[in-house]
C-alpha cells in the first residue's frame, strides 16, 4: 500500500496543501474514537511500532503511545538519555538493528536536526519525526493547525504570530511551513537574539514588540523558553523576558480583538506566559493536547497506507 504521505513524515516543509489537509481531515473521525468507552479501532492490528526517544519527552511520547494503542498497534518504547553517540552506538547501527527486527514504524525524537531523515533514508520502515533538534516537529504543528481550524473554522487568511525562542524551535519551523502552506499569514516575535537569521525569507513578518503582534494577530502560539537560554546569554534574565516578551493579561487587555492562545508545552508559567492567560478563556492549550492524539492517529494510519474515507466511516471494520 502506498501512502498519500510517502514513506516517512519528516516535516511539513515538503508536504503539499492537499497532504496536510488530508491529515487534518483524517484526524476528525479519530477524535471520536478517544471519546468512546472502548477507545480502540483495529486499523493497525498486527503492526509493530517502536517509539525511539533520544530526548526526554513526556507529552509527545505518551500522545504517540495512546495514538498507537487506540489503533491496536503493538508498541515498544525505547528511551535513551543523551544522544546515541554518548550511548556508544551510532544512529546507523540503531537503525540497522531496528530493521533486523522487522518493525513496521519508528517514531523518533532526537536532539540532532536531520536525525529523522537520516533514519528514514536508511530503513524500509515508516519513520515519523517526533522532533529532531531545531529542525521540525510536524505532528505538533499539525495539532496546532487542527486546533486553530476547530476554533476559528479555517486556516486560510488567519493571522498567527509565533512568540518567543524561534531560533531553537522545531515547533516554530513546522508551524511556519504548515500555516503558510494552508494560506495563513504568519509572523514571529521575540528577542532578535532568539530569531534565526534570514527568517523573513521563510515568508513571515517580524514584530519587535509583542504588543504589536497582539494587535495584529488572530492567534498567538507562545513558545516555551528553555531556561538554558539565559545561561547561554541570549537574554539577560527571565524576569526581563517576561516583562518584554511574556504574554500577560495586561498586554492582552489592550488587544482590539480576542486572541486564541496556543502553547506547545510544557509551560513556564510566569515566564513566556502568565498563569491567568494559560488558564483563561482564550487558551486552547488543553484542546491542543486532545487533538494531539487524533492527529497522530491520522498520521500513523495514513503512513500505514490507510484510506482517508475508511477513517471517516468510523474505522470499525477493515
Amino acid at each position, binding site marked *: 500500500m502506498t501512502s498519500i504521505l510517502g514513506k516517512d513524515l519528516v516535516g511539513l516543509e515538503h508536504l503539499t496543501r492537499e497532504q496536510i489537509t488530508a491529515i487534518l481531515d483524517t484526524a476528525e473521525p479519530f477524535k471520536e474514537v478517544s471519546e468512546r468507552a472502548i477507545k480502540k479501532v483495529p486499523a493497525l492490528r498486527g503492526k509493530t511500532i517502536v517509539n525511539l526517544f533520544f530526548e526526554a519527552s513526556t507529552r509527545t511520547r505518551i500522545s504517540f503511545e495512546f495514538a498507537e494503542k487506540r489503533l491496536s498497534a503493538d508498541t515498544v518504547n525505547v528511551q535513551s538519555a543523551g544522544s546515541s553517540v554518548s550511548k556508544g552506538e551510532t544512529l*546507523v547501527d540503531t537503525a540497522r538493528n531496528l530493521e533486523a527486527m522487522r518493525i513496521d514504524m519508528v517514531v523518533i525524537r532526537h536532539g540532532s536536526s536531520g536525525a529523522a531523515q537520516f533514519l528514514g533514508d536508511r530503513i524500509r520502515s515508516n519513520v515519523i519525526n517526533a522532533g529532531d*533538534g531545531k*529542525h521540525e516537529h510536524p505532528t505538533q504543528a499539525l495539532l496546532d493547525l487542527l486546533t486553530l481550524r476547530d476554533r476559528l473554522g479555517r486556516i486560510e487568511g488567519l493571522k498567527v504570530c509565533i512568540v518567543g525562542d524561534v531560533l531553537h524551535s522545531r515547533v516554530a519551523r513546522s508551524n511556519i511551513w504548515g500555516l503558510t502552506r494552508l494560506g495563513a499569514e504568519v509572523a514571529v516575535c521575540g528577542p532578535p537574539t532568539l530569531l534565526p537569521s534570514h527568517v523573513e525569507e521563510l515568508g513571515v513578518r517580524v514584530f519587535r514588540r509583542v504588543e504589536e503582534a497582539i494587535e495584529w494577530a488572530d492567534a498567538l502560539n507562545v513558545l516555551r523558553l528553555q531556561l538554558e537560554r539565559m545561561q547561554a546569554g541570549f537574554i539577560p534574565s527571565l524576569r526581563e523576558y517576561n516583562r518584554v516578551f511574556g504574554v500577560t493579561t495586561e498586554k492582552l487587555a489592550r488587544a482590539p480583538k480576542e486572541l486564541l492562545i496556543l502553547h506547545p508545552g510544557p509551560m513556564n508559567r510566569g515566564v513566556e506566559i502568565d498563569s491567568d492567560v494559560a488558564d483563561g478563556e482564550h487558551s486552547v492549550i488543553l484542546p491542543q493536547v486532545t487533538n494531539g492524539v487524533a492527529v497522530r492517529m491520522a498520521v500513523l494510519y495514513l503512513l500505514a497506507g490507510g484510506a482517508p474515507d475508511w477513517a471517516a466511516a468510523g474505522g470499525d471494520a477493515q
Partner: protein
Amino acid sequence: MSLQLFRGGRVIDPSQRLDDVTDLLVRDGRIADTGRDLGNPDGATIVDATGLVIAPGLIDVHVHLREPGQEDRETIATGAASAAAGGFTGICAMPNTDPVIDNQAAVGFVKARGVAAALARVYPIGCISLGQRGEQLAEFGEMVAAGAVAVSDDGHPVMSSQLMRTALEYAKVFGIPVADHCEDTPLAHGGAMHEGIVSTRLGLKGIPAAAEEIHVARDCILAELTGGHIHLCHMSTRGSVELIRRAKEKGLSVTAEAAPHHFTLTHERCEGYDTNAKMNPPLREAEDRDAIRAALADGTIDCIATDHAPHHYDAKEREFDDAPNGIIGLETALSLALRELVAPGLLSLSTLIDRMSCAPARLWHLDGGSLRRGGVADLVLFDPAGSWTVDPARLRSRSRNTPWGGEVLPGVVHATMVGGRTVHQRTP
C-alpha cells in the same frame, strides 16, 4: 645519465610566461631544455605528449595526512599517492595529527615518511604553539632545521592576538609563513554550517561569515604591525576577499589560499543533511563563491589549496551535528578548477597553473613550480579535454569522503613526475 624527451605537448609554465606546443628535455631529474624540435638526443626515452598539457607539478600547501595517529583515515604514503594521482608533486602536511607536530623529532618523522613513500615531496608544517594550545610558541628554528616549511595551528584558530603577534615576529627570522585558520571561536561556537537561510531551514547552528572576517582583519592588522608573513588558510567569504585586497594594496605580506569546494559549492549543498557538505569554514553563499572565483582570477587569493581532510566513512555516516568537518580533495582539485574556473573563462589555463603550482612554490619557498632550466623535473601531464568518473572506492586516498562521487569531471592526469621519476601513470 638518464634523458627523457617529451614531444608535442602544450608546455605551460607561467614562471617564464611559457605556453607553447614544444618539446621538453629532462636530464637526471632536472629540466635540461625546452624548445621546438629538440631533436632526438642519444639514449633519450621519448614520451609522446601530443594533446596533453605539460606543466610544473601541482603544489598544495594545505593537506591533512593524519599520520601519526589516525592511520585508519590516511597515511603519509596513501596521502602522497592520492597527491600523485591528482597531479600534485608537493604537499604541505598540517600538524594537527595525534600527537601534533610541534617539535623537531615529529617534523623529522613526517619528512622521513614522505621520503620513504617517494610519491610526492611531503613538506611538514610545524605547530605555532606547543600542543596547538595557543599558549607557548613551539621551537620554530628547530622545526625548520628538521624540514618544516611553515607553521600553523590549523584546526585551531590562534585566538590570542599576542601569540599571533609573537609568531609573526619570530617567524621572520626563518623566512617562513605563519598560516592561520581564521575563525573567531566564540562567534562560531557549535556551528555546523554557514549561517543563513539554509541553516535556518535545516535547524542547524550557523557560523556567520563575520567569524572568519574578524579574524582575517586582525591578522592583516598584525601583519602590518610586525612585517611578518601571514598566510590565510581556506578563505570562504566575500568579506575576507575585500579585506585581503585592501591589505595587498597596502603592500602587506599577506597571502591567501582557497579550496576547490569553496569555489565550487554553496550552502544549499547541505540540504538533506549531506555530511560530505560539512566543512569548516563552511560552504557559503553564491555571492561568496563568486567572490572567491574572482579573487583567484585577479590574484587577491594567491593559490588553490585543497584542505584535503580524510575521514573514515563511519565518521561521516552520522547526524550532521556530530559528523566531522572536511572532505578529501587531492584527486579532484585539478578537475574542479578546470570545470569551475577555466571552462567559464575566469582563469586561463596558464593562470590556473600559477595558482596551483608557481604561486605556492614561490610564496612558500618550495621546490618546483617552474620548468626553468636546471630546476627539478616535477611535472604533471594532463589531458584537459578528457573526462573521468569519480568513484570514491577507487581513489588512492584511504578515505572516500567526497561530495563528487559519481560525477563526471573534466581533466585527466596522465602522469605525474617528481624529480624526473614517474610517481603516477594513468592506467588505461
